[in-house]
């Protein structure tokens, strides 16, 4: 039943509040910087939006890790899909009515929707997960900021008409949906188990975030090379750093890391 072994409170070396502040401030700064610098200096700075999305992804992954350690019974992927499902609704609504305050409005709306779903889960459906309400609110907010960040990067602005015509109408939004969901759910899903460690899980969150950035770079290459090149290069850099970090953490936590070599040839087998 429990996805991550016996239900327990996950131990965190970095306190959840610190990661929450990092996620909210980091992504909002990234989104606003991406929006204004792109308008002022051109599309070269649009990568800042997806840089902000990486902060939100790390926050989301940490929350998924805390809530899924209790064993929600449905598997980790469901919560990532829920995050982005709530995120899409909140993000587009917030950007439309919020204007310049769009990302903040989206964040508030997402927190409210998440809180309601968390309350329904614990009070009506009796899931019995102690942190369900706050965790669902945090996940919804993280999903929303991820979507707004990546979309801002793709459209070069978070103004709703830009987003609708440059991200939604051409179908990029489907890509944003699935890469955002997987980036939030994958870190814990691939690290869960009795020896799960926060720093290792978050290292994968950075790896996933950088992959989101690389994919964003590839996608916008068809629209604007000036915005694609910095996104791709910085994404690759983050990927290399995060992956090296992750590999060193795997070596730290594993009993032994050995090379198995290539598959034996037919002659060697006989």
């Amino acid at each position: 039943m429990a996805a991550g072994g016996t239900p327990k409170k996950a131990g965190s070396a970095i306190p959840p509040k610190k990661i929450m502040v990092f996620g909210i401030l980091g992504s909002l700064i990234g989104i606003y910087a991406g929006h204004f610098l792109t308008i002022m200096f051109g599309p070269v700075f649009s990568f800042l939006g997806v840089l902000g999305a990486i902060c939100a992804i790390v926050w989301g992954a940490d929350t998924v890790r805390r809530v899924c350690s209790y064993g929600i019974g449905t598997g980790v992927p469901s919560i990532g899909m829920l995050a982005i499902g709530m995120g899409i609704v909140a993000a587009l609504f917030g950007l439309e009515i919020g204007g310049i305050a769009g990302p903040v409005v989206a964040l508030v709306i997402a927190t409210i929707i998440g809180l309601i779903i968390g309350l329904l889960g614990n009070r009506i459906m009796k899931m019995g997960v102690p942190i369900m309400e706050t965790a669902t609110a945090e996940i919804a907010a993280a999903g929303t900021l991820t979507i707004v960040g990546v979309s801002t990067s793709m459209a070069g602005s978070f103004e709703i008409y830009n987003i609708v015509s440059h991200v939604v109408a051409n179908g990029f939004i489907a890509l944003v949906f699935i890469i955002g969901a997987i980036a939030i759910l994958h870190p814990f899903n691939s690290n869960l188990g009795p020896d799960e460690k926060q720093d290792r899980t978050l290292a994968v969150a950075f790896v996933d975030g950088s992959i989101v950035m690389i994919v964003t770079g590839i996608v916008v290459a068809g629209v604007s090379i000036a915005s694609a090149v910095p996104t791709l290069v910085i994404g690759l850099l983050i990927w290399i750093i995060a992956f090296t970090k992750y590999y060193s953490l795997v070596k730290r936590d594993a009993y032994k890391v050995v090379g198995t070599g290539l598959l034996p040839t037919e002659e060697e087998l006989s």
Partner: protein
Amino acid sequence: MIDFAAIIAENILYLLLIIVGGLLVAIGVHFVPVGGAPAAMAQSTGVGTGTVQLAAGAGLTGLVAAGAVMQVTDNLLLVIASGMVGAMIMISSTMLLGNMIYIYGVGVPPASAKIKYDPITRDRQDLYISQGTEGHGVPTSCFISGVIGGGLGGLGGAMVYFALLSVTNGTSALNVIGLASIFSVAIFFINAVIASYNIGGTTEGFHDPKFKRLPKAVVSSIIVTFISGILSLITIGGL
């Protein structure tokens, strides 16, 4: 400033359609035989993957089918029926292939441990259960339950899509199609996960004791779909 009340008043019928659609998705998930991780090792009845994956596979196929038919006709019933049939075909082929792997690959007979006799074929179940497992494969009643679930899910998804597409708006058709499809996918996923939370991740179908928890999912689904329906309605209507 966007006039919320006017948009909602103008599209109140579509809001109702969205709520009914979301509700159908949540109910449909309760019918689908989801085995989860144990079923992947042939240790419990159902298809060996999570609720969201199965529901999404069937529901999104339904959405694609509905979208394809919508290009040639604007008849509501035809669009919704094709969405329903698309989802039913998808879930059936998933269960059929899953069963082939369980029967010919793993080598287990499809059987359920939660009931003594299959409610449809009246076949004895407990004799065929391997020791230490909770059943395996997709027996007849689970299969039929799954087809019903896929149908309800596709019907609900297509209804949400059609309703969002019909909302009065002041923007181009392409924008509305994009918004309507991503919103219906989002509403679909939210309802699938809520239903999945309600059954605790695994179920066998309508004969499973967990099926009695359905009313809780209905209440939750109505509340959540109402909120997300209004938000998406205003987003599309306000453009």
